[in-house]
């Protein structure tokens, strides 16, 4: 494919959206409040697993200013369930989440009732006096308890095992028989979540006269969510508008269809008043999708020389109490991405998804990839050491070479077709990381104790998919003033899409950056949109913009041709002007005026091929064996994103992802007890990185190989930065503590965890 000419694309332009954020004039969902709004608070189960005996609403309804308390009985006989959006593994339909608990509660935080009052404070007062009686049942706190099936979350299904399947490529048994070396280990990645700084919120307005519903605060996949909501409320889709305001971070968790996305619109229609619900932080930690809780058994087969022959293993996914919209993405992708960027003749993975009485799971930035990378790369590090091969050399020798690309990784996911790594130079990306990091020079420190701390280094490659299909839509409207308004199905959750899309459109139409108004996400903008997930907004939405721009140019030529009295082909477009020989030029604005005020075009970009970004991370750590504290002294993340539309934005995404990843290694952890009670549902107890934790980070964006599957040449760029972090840090720690023989196998690696590992090793 031809690559578009490059003037705005590739420039580190300042972001257009920043002006409103820097002056406090953005509009986040809680900043929007229609007149006569009622405020909602949600009664959530404090019991992990139990039978609902009764709910006495009397005391709550007596509070002045409390208007209604709604529970399942108010919704009716058929309580809707939240549909699967992705990864629809066979059998999951029996474990979907009802929009409100009825009969049973299955996790702490499950919505049981909703209070509507004049203020949020009054609604919370009412929660205090709502008398909910739940008969507790045995909690199911983890997958091991789930597998026993002594306490079953869905009695009618008679098991907590939602799905079990085996997937493979090649002849794994034969490869293992032929191997000189094998090693098998167990690994674990801990439950945590994305924690966007803005909690969720919904404002619903029902217009009883026209039968229309307006829902503000929507994002990510608005068209899917509208379809789901329309079905649940028995309304035509066209009667519902989902509107996207400013959004305070997504990272996978925000914007999926949650119970509140039904409950608030339902309540607004029921009481015929606008209803607003803003999640508080405790609710957020109990209610938003959790992620990353995977156990893994993994075995590697190699030759003496370190050639990898096969991997086989088991992925145990803790799904929480219900299968939500993301279906089996987390465990299925953890299985698929065990393959990694390596030449691997055979792989076999058994996947099991367990229902436990905890908050349901969904996707968090690079779902499954982070976990898989950690499992595989820890095992490779051990294998390299066992075989006496320098670990970077071991990895480089097994990387898929450019001549082997495209490289099929088969059909490792049951709900997908065969997929191929597209293009790239994995070895070059790896070498660049080693060079930027100064691997050879730093190697002298490996395992050494300097001033009371052990030093360690590691390098880990990764591959990451992006750009999910099937299509995206864009509409361009040229107005009298020469401004082009772009409506697009992609959602903006803070990643700077308004800027990036103006750069793409500016180049495509040879217009300045400030001639565009970018509207995104809302269901009012295009007929159908597919949203923002799987690092797809630029790949799919950006490509749709290119197609729309071509159509707009043609439409302008035709309109100008009528004015000029010539063929459209005889009109050329230069710098916002339409030209033809021997006639005065017309500006785009003048042409729009003459064409009736506006010129509108729409375009669709369709593509089912994924993009695969790739790269490598390297880290240098110092471990204090007396405290278990780890300092990250240097960290380099290298990623080839094909084409960076705005390198400063890509760089920001990479560093942001990196720090989220470091949080996942050292801090983030949703801790449950044996009764499946979440123990740390506040930011005082649930820790994330702060400004003083990780000052020494470097990111390098490469544009070595543009994607062959879209006209921009772009690959997904928002998620790759997190994929290799856990593995890189854990391997650097193992390298530092190699003289003690410590091999971290479980995340997180908090000071107490590492301190205990050191103590246990010394006591042996």
């Amino acid at each position, binding site marked *: 494919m031809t690559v578009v000419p490059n003037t705005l694309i590739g420039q580190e332009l300042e*972001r257009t959206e920043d002006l409103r954020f820097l002056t406090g004039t953005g509009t986040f969902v809680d900043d929007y409040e229609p007149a006569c709004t009622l405020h909602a608070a949600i009664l959530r189960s404090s019991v992990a697993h139990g039978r609902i005996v009764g709910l006495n609403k009397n005391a709550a309804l007596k509070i002045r200013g409390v208007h209604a308390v709604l529970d399942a009985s108010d919704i009716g006989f058929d309580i809707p369930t939240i549909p699967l959006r992705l990864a629809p593994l066979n059998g999951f339909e029996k474990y979907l989440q009802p929009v409100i608990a009825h009969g049973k509660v299955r996790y702490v935080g499950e919505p049981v009732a909703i209070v509507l009052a004049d203020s949020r404070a009054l609604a919370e007062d009412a929660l205090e006096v709502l008398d909910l009686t739940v008969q507790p049942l045995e909690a199911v706190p983890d997958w091991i308890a789930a597998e026993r099936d002594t306490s079953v979350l869905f009695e009618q299904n008679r098991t907590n095992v939602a799905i079990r399947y085996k997937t493979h490529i090649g002849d794994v048994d034969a490869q293992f028989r032929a191997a000189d070396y094998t090693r098998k280990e167990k690994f674990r990645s801990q439950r945590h979540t994305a924690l966007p700084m803005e909690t969720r919120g919904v404002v619903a307005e029902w217009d009883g006269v026209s039968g229309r519903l307006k829902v503000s605060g929507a994002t990510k996949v608005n068209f899917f969510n509208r379809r789901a909501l329309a079905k649940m409320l028995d309304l035509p889709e066209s009667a519902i508008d989902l509107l996207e305001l400013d959004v305070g971070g997504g990272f996978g968790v925000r914007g999926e269809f949650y119970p509140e996305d039904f409950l608030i619109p339902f309540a607004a229609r029921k009481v015929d008043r606008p209803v607003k619900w803003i999640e508080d932080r405790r609710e957020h930690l109990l209610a938003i999708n959790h992620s990353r809780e995977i156990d893994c058994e993994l075995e590697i087969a190699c030759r003496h020389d370190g050639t990898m022959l096969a991997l086989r293993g088991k992925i145990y996914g803790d799904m929480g109490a219900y299968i939500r919209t993301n279906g089996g993405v987390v465990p299925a992708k953890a299985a698929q991405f065990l393959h990694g960027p390596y030449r691997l003749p055979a792989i076999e993975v058994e996947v099991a998804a367990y229902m436990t009485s905890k908050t349901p799971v969904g996707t968090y930035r690079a779902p499954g990839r982070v976990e898989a990378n950690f499992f595989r790369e820890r095992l490779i590090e051990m294998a390299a050491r066992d075989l006496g091969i320098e670990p970077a050399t071991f990895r480089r020798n097994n990387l898929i070479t450019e001549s082997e690309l495209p490289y099929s990784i088969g059909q490792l996911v049951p709900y997908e077709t065969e997929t191929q790594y597209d293009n790239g130079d994995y070895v070059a990306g790896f070498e660049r990381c080693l060079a930027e990091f100064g691997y050879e020079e730093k190697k002298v420190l490996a395992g050494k104790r300097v001033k009371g701390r052990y030093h360690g280094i590691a390098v880990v490659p990764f591959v990451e998919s992006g750009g999910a299909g099937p299509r995206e839509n864009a509409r361009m409207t040229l107005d009298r003033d020469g401004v082009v308004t772009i409506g697009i199905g992609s959602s903006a959750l803070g990643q700077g899409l308004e800027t990036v899309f103006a750069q793409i459109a500016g180049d495509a139409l040879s217009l300045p950056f400030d001639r565009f108004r970018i509207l995104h996400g809302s269901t009012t903008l295009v007929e159908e949109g597919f949203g923002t997930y799987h690092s797809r907004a630029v790949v799919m939405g950006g490509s749709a913009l290119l197609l729309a721009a071509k159509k707009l140019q043609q439409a302008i030529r035709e309109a100008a041709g009528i004015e000029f009295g010539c063929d459209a082909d005889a009109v050329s477009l230069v710098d916002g002007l339409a030209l033809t020989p021997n006639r005065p030029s017309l500006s785009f604005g003048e042409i729009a005026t003459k064409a009736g005020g506006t010129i509108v075009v729409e375009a669709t970009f369709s593509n089912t091929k994924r993009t695969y970004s790739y790269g490598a991370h390297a880290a240098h750590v110092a471990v204090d064996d007396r405290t278990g504290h780890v300092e990250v002294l240097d960290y380099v993340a290298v990623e080839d994103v094909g084409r960076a539309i705005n390198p400063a934005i890509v*760089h920001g995404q990479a*560093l942001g992802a990196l*720090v989220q990843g470091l949080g996942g290694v050292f801090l983030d952890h949703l801790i449950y007890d044996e009764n499946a009670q979440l123990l740390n549902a506040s930011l005082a107890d649930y820790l994330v990185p*702060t400004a*003083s934790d990780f000052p020494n980070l470097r990111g390098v964006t490469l544009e070595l190989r543009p994607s062959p599957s879209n006209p921009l040449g772009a690959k997904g760029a928002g998620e790759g930065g997190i994929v290799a972090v856990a593995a890189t840090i854990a391997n650097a720690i193992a390298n530092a503590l190699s003289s003690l023989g410590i091999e971290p196998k479980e995340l997180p690696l908090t000071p107490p965890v590492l301190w205990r590992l050191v103590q246990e090793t010394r006591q042996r």
Partner: protein
Amino acid sequence: MVTRTSRFNVNGKPVQIDVEPRTNLADALRHHLKLTGTHVGCEHGVCGACTVIVDGAAIRSCLMLAAQAEGSNIITIEGLPRGQGDTLGPLAASFKKHHALQCGFCTPGILTTAHALLTEEPDADADRIRDVLSGNLCRCTGYISIIDAVLDARSAYQKQKIA
């Protein structure tokens, strides 16, 4: 509902509001005065998104009652210094230049914290800035660009101090 009248100055203007005694300053600013630039991220004093400047000190407006603000001078994101012709002030301009924000939700709290710091300590070094901003959570940027932006804005505050 018993309300109480509170009087204080916000961004140089005297205001008077009738609020319940339990109303915190963040809610008073956002809901009663419609200054929605101050954001609420946790309501328990950890995330720093709601930081405003009260009598020169950066404080968490979710941990202060509106009644406690009686008589004080409050600066919110809306009242931070602007440049000539209503352009961005030096700190905000530096944030834009350094891509020191993504979703923008934590940004008001970070700007108010940094403004209070640089007003007092225009020579603060990177370690000091990191230490002070460690009370403001950001999930998007990884903080590096934020520190760079604050460092770069110091010169404007240094000139001011000399003047």
